[in-house]
């Protein structure tokens, strides 16, 4: 185990770096989609319309009660049978991560919206702003600032969660690590140490970036 040339060579490292690229791509797509979908779900749950509120509540609470791995398997194996379209692993993984995280983001957004002082909304309303304008110009910008810490924590979780898509064969970082140690000289421990280091650095970096964003916007 002293000579790690089999791991630290250009070919293997490029292979693993490609995996990190897939991991980050998957995370970025899911963050973007779940952020937008989470806001829509939160607004639906706070809506005045009964039906909308009930549908959003069932979706959010249902998703939050299920394991992500089940959602990933469902998206890859079961969803194509329902919609009649075959999904490649990456698409299925992105759908599952986005759909799952959207429910969690929705709860963060809802808490953020409810935490906006009522007086600010009254001030805006008393100047003749419409409800849609109040939401866009006052409520959401203030809510997003308040929920930054929780959102960043959620996206750190999401970055870790992308590893679960290894089980449906997406060649992200964890899956590529498995492939590397399944080949001669069959030494998993250095591979895992490297994986751990990469994930740790990526997550820590994301958390730090989030913290900087927090202090800048507050």
């Amino acid at each position: 185990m002293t000579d790690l040339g089999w791991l630290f060579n250009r070919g293997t490292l490029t292979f693993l770096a490609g995996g990190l690229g897939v991991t980050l791509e998957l995370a970025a797509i899911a963050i973007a989609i779940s952020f937008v979908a989470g806001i829509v779900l939160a607004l639906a749950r706070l809506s005045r319309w009964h039906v909308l509120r009930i549908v959003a509540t069932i979706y959010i609470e249902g998703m939050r009660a299920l394991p992500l791995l089940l959602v990933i398997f469902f998206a890859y194996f079961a969803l194509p049978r329902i919609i009649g379209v075959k999904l490649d692993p990456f698409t299925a993984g992105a759908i599952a991560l986005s759909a799952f995280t959207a429910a969690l983001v929705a709860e963060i957004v809802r808490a953020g919206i409810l935490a906006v002082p009522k007086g600010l909304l009254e001030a805006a309303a008393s100047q003749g702003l419409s409800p849609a304008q109040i939401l866009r110009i006052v409520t959401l910008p203030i809510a997003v600032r308040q929920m930054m810490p929780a959102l960043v924590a959620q996206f750190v979780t999401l970055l870790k969660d992308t590893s679960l898509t290894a089980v449906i064969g997406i060649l992200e970082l964890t899956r590529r690590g498995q492939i590397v140690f399944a080949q001669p000289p069959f030494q998993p421990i250095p591979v895992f140490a490297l994986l751990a280091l990469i994930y740790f650095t990526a997550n820590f970096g994301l958390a730090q970036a989030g913290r900087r964003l927090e202090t800048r916007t507050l």
Partner: protein
Amino acid sequence: MDWSVLGENAGLLAQGLLVTVEVSALALLLALGLGVIVATLRVAPSAAPRRIGAAYVEFLRNIPLLVQLFFLFFALPSIGIKLDAFVCGVLALGVYTSAFVAEAIRSGIAAVPKGQLEAGLSGGMTYPTAMRLIVLPQAIGKTIPPLGNTTLNLIKNSSLVSTVSVLDVLGTANLLGARSFQYVPMFAGAAICYLILTLPTAYAVNVLEKRYAR
């Protein structure tokens, strides 16, 4: 779609549910035990144990559970430690979750005003006594909500043991789905099993949260 497979295999799913409960319960015990120890380190009066506790928490929280589980299952045998898949599952889940337990307890303790501890110390109590009699009882209420969430996540995360061939709910559903090609009913059955576990837990957490919210 043939929903009859669900009825035919209900017994197997129920067995899987039992395995999920076993894994979750054992991992929770491990997580609580380790978590309390690490939380103690994190609020210790001197810097060295605090740093060790922080490193433990940050390390475990920032590495995916799946990677930790695969490490126990695939890597340890290469240095001669061969553990049963079930044991790997409980260990990985318990150790990973202990970081979140420790963090929940630490933040609960941090939420108790500092003057409370100081009042106890200035009254002549030792640090452990003041912690035990004054700070910890007040911290419990603030710890319940995050601990409840951690427990819920643990139950959901227990599904990862299926990736190392343990036949828990998800492992069973996946196997039966592949065998019968009836994925939709089998995953729906698995979802119901998880809801049976998580919804009452979520409800219990809510009740406790209200009782301790003072």
